[in-house]
């Protein structure tokens, strides 16, 4: 017996993306107030939403709170969902907003200055310390647990306002305009902040990926 991805039970690892038709059907059931449809929506989307919240927030408790708040917000505004985007995309944006609200309400953690992580230049504008090459296999190992953990740890070390822009643009793959809107910033400020965040992350990863001969 096959199981529908929406009404059936799957582990989060194996649950396939719902098709547009399946989402449309689920939306109709939700709008009709069918109790079971809300449980199906939660089972369908909670895993992805929790992954987003864990990337954006430092504490597990906050991530779970944000997912809960995102679902409540989605349930309340279902009537306003116009169906122009996928239901999963709409829920992703709501989760990002719930996480941003959570971050705004939190006290800032002590953090290092971004300037410490940016390249230094001599008076003539050349790099004060020449950049050295990275090992060829550095980015081929993105699937290894060790590399994943390293990258996550280093992203977490970025100053908060830079980390959030990098997470939204490079990890959550929001556009520059969407990031600017979510963070109430100008498009140019997002670009500047993203460039600095990437440079800072590069500096944090640099010692781990340098070619042996250039260390």
């Amino acid at each position, binding site marked *: 017996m096959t199981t529908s991805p929406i009404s059936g039970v799957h582990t989060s690892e194996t649950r396939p993306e719902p098709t547009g038709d399946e989402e449309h059907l689920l939306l109709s059931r939700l709008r009709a107030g069918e109790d079971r449809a809300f449980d199906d929506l939660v089972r369908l989307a*909670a*895993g992805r939403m929790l992954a987003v919240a864990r990337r954006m927030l430092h504490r597990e408790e906050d991530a779970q709170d944000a997912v809960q708040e995102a679902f409540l917000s989605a*349930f309340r505004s279902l009537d306003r969902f116009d169906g122009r985007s996928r239901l999963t995309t709409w829920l992703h944006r709501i989760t990002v907003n719930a996480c941003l609200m959570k971050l705004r309400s939190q006290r800032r953690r002590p953090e290092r200055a971004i300037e410490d992580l940016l390249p230094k230049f001599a008076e003539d504008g050349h790099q004060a310390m020449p950049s050295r090459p990275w090992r060829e296999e550095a980015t081929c190992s993105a699937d290894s647990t060790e590399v994943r953990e390293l990258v996550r740890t280093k992203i977490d070390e970025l100053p908060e306002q830079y980390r959030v822009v990098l997470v939204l643009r490079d990890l959550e793959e929001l556009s520059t305009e969407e990031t600017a809107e979510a963070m109430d910033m100008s498009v140019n400020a997002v670009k500047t902040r993203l460039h600095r965040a990437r440079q800072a992350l590069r500096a944090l990863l640099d010692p781990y990926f340098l070619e042996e001969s250039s260390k």
Partner: protein
Amino acid sequence: MSEPTPRQAPATGSGITCREAIDFIMAYLDNELPMEQRHEFERHLSVCPSCVNYLDSYQRTVTLGRETHRGNTDDVPASLLKAIGAARKRSGSA
């Protein structure tokens, strides 16, 4: 807090420094550099191995960030599923 705007290229013909080249990287990769600045940037790379290394590691940093987080779907604790259901009932949503 005000953010500094990205550095502008010097007048044509004067060449660019490493500082300017590194400031241009993101716009270069996004194909947003005007043709003249793109040529200046590429001319700088042709004579500056350090900036070639910097550009390469910058690109790999972006790739690593994306690849190490791509397509994540986490297992959801049963307690969270229950909490969402309970919160919906309390709030009277739908």
